[in-house]
């Protein structure tokens, strides 16, 4: 018995290729003009055309939050945004929040609380946390947990992310009952 399967586009009338066009984006306070196809996502525009690779691609489907950037201060998934639509908006990426030598309070808190491991979800977490702080509606631990849940972290740094966000949200005043570290010192080795 022979069965044949043909792999082809679901929509037989797939759109034709559309030529690139000029798009101007205001990113981190700078106007940048690039030539891109109209179906280029804001995420790909940042990463592949503007060399702003701090914004990460984790799924390209709006499921993980690694691509979170701030648009006019509000957090969005840049993978679900077409770049051309965001002309005239103020876009802020992780590179615009602070630099290696001059970290923002949130970036410093992430370092101090070890709120990341591999670091790949981190720019999205930080942009999302900045958006959460800008929104001004979350105060409690449970609220922050809930409203930071659009950003996946496969390394499992969640408790430390929570500590870092709470610290900045409450100007260093918040104490999060989030688990402690206890070290029991080594005993002298017994003779084997």
């Amino acid at each position: 018995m022979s069965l044949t399967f043909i792999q082809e586009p679901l929509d037989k009338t797939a759109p034709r290729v559309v030529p690139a066009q000029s798009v101007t984006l205001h990113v981190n306070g700078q106007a940048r003009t690039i030539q891109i196809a109209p179906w280029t996502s804001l995420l790909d525009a940042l990463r592949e055309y503007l060399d702003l690779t701090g914004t990460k691609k984790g799924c390209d489907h709006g499921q993980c939050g690694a691509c979170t950037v701030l648009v006019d201060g509000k957090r969005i998934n840049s993978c679900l945004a077409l770049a051309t639509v965001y002309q005239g908006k103020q876009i802020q990426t992780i590179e615009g929040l602070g630099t290696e030598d001059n970290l923002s309070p949130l970036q410093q808190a992430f370092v101090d609380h070890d709120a990341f491991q591999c670091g790949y979800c981190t720019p999205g977490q930080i942009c999302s946390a900045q958006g959460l702080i800008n929104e001004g509606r979350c105060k409690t631990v449970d609220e922050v947990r809930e409203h930071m849940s659009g950003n996946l972290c496969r390394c499992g740094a969640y408790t430390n992310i929570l500590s870092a966000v709470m610290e900045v949200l409450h100007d260093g005043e918040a104490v999060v009952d989030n688990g402690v570290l206890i070290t029991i010192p080594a005993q002298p080795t017994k003779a084997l």
Partner: protein
Amino acid sequence: MSQTIATPPTVRLDSDVIGKPINRTEGPAKVSGAAKYAAEFDVTGPLWYGYIVSSPVAKGKITKIHAEEVLAIPGVQRVFSHENVPSLAWFDRAYKDDVAPGGSPFRPLHEPEIMFSQQPVALVVAETFELARYAASVLRIEYDVEKHNTDLESSIGEAFDAPKGKTGFLPPPKPKGDMNKAFADAPHKVAGEYIHRAQHHNPMEMFATTVDWLGDGKKMKIYDKTQGAPNVQQYIAKIFGLSKDEARIISKYTGGGFGAGLRPQYQVFLAVMAALELEHSIRVVMNRSQMFSMGYRPHTLQKLRLAADDLGHLQAIEHKALAETSQFENETETVVNWSAILYDAPNTNFDYQLTKLDLNTPADMRAPGAATGSFALESAIDELSYEAGKDPLEFRLLNYTYEDPSENKPFTSKRLDDCYHEGAARFGWEKRNPAPRSMRDEKGLLVGWGVAAGCWDASTQKAAAKAVLTADGHLTVSSATNDQGAGTYVIMTQMAAQTLGLPMSQVTFNLGDTDMPAAPVQGGSWTANSVGAAVKNACQEIGKKLLKLAQKMDDSPLAGVDFEDVQFVDGHLRTNEDITRSVAIADVLAASGEAKLEADGKAGPNPLNMLKYSMHSHNAAFVEVKVDEDLGTIHVTRVVNAVAAGRIMNPKTARSQVLGGTVWGVSMALMEETYLNKDLGRYVNHNYAEYHIPTNADIHKIDVIFVEEEDDIASSIGVKGVGEIGMLGVAAAIANAVYHATGKRVRELPLTIDKLL
């Protein structure tokens, strides 16, 4: 956060950096977006993009690829497939990487046959990413479809004993006594079948390779996502007939791996092949669906039978496992052996088998084998403790092993008993009402408390490092190791700083480049131990050179002193006996006139110690769950994870490893499962929305306890590694807590609502 400073490798001083909770040295780069991952490097000249096309069928043959239709699109450069793949290395061994299992490795685009759903069948290369993706989406491919089998349960009859062939795989221990008789005669016994289905690693960064075509003969810079640049280098060099110099692999940052990046993945093959054929820089990034086309924790069926005498002493242990593998390779995990290490009984029987299915080869995934085996074992132990009328913790202590019964060897160190005691004290275990369904919270939710233990081997691999001390007093140490988030950057910097008594700010550690001394893949929890020892040895060699130079100085206070009698502290060399006999390293360098000092360091396993001793890390996980019986929801509200893993180099990053392991345990217990549609032979939830992992709201309080061990036999630097151990015990402790809360024993993961209602 409280912590105590561990004994450093030399002497105990305030200036010690080992054992201190120091921030990651690469932290500022990661939080500012400056850290570059594989798909983010600039190239020389223009960059083209490759987009991978995956097979929609599980088994069959490609009969026609309509490449000409997409090649007609302006800007599309090439469609690579089995029809035009260049002639490459012929023998299997060229495709074998350092950690390949036995069998015949998958060769991308090698032939028209389809061996698994989502097998890569073509690479479309175009001038922009958008164009490559579009062209790939309209590429028509015709297949002859054959009948596939991806059903483990219905293929049990085809199981065979897992063969050797993979480095590190231990066959099941030999049987002891008379299992059947002992089980039949015992007053207390349990028997159960345990199941989990495939789980995929899903690191946040998707696999990616950027090849920088330098235009100079065949030389390339290959930026790859991997857990081991040297492993990728030898794979690429052998397949494409390149010298190692021509196949330079760079992997500065790895956005998670968890085992997915141990073996070279097919995107690096495709990217390098396309770059060589087109003589052009190229970038290939998988999409999230394709992250489910690679290795995975295999669907495994386990059967356990345990029996105890009237006093609660184990009399019989039987642990059998059956796992799936591909048609072309025998991926083997060590699943059942842990049951013969954690517990002892006079009558035992162990078995581990495989069945071949029309799927891709599974792969090691965080705590491979142990996560699988320990869930079943520690669930069964818990069940037996109830049968025997003992507290689950008391029952474990009653059956504690002081020697490794699987090999009749002493442990180099084992403080699992202290993990139990310290963990129980922190958790408040003494307040536990032992009866199931006896505890409720203030809202009326059922509360369950569970415990389980874990065990992982502490192994050392061959590793090398190079240290360079320049005249300005800066120490740069390098090794081609990896940091997938484990903390390699910071702990190696600590190790180097400690060894030569320099401040952290005067030390740089570089990794992830095959131009550096070779190191093993980052896995098995062996990096801290293996690379750490190599770094220490390289720095000690620098120290010896410094001492010689110091002794050449006029009226040297160190004249006639042996290296063993010298310590390196606060930028000085000084004698152990009299610390006022001291010379500043800066003065030694200045007086010597040397521009720089260089030294290599190596480390590796100690075969004699391995023969004599059993080397393992251990943990005990205590878990509280709250169950809403009306809705069937389970929340893990509190975890205490007590870990005994030798010396802790950096409590901050080690704690993070254990936090991550704990989250992985919660994830395995409650969420992770890749659904295989057996009619299609295909994983159907291949995306982050439908493959569930915990979010921030799912994770609550986690206490980490390090019970440190002084152990210079398991490792010359006393380190056992913490990458895997933190995950163990957690899933079983959750299942045990769910039993305590509800009276319902669930033996199938994940513990979803349907299994509880």
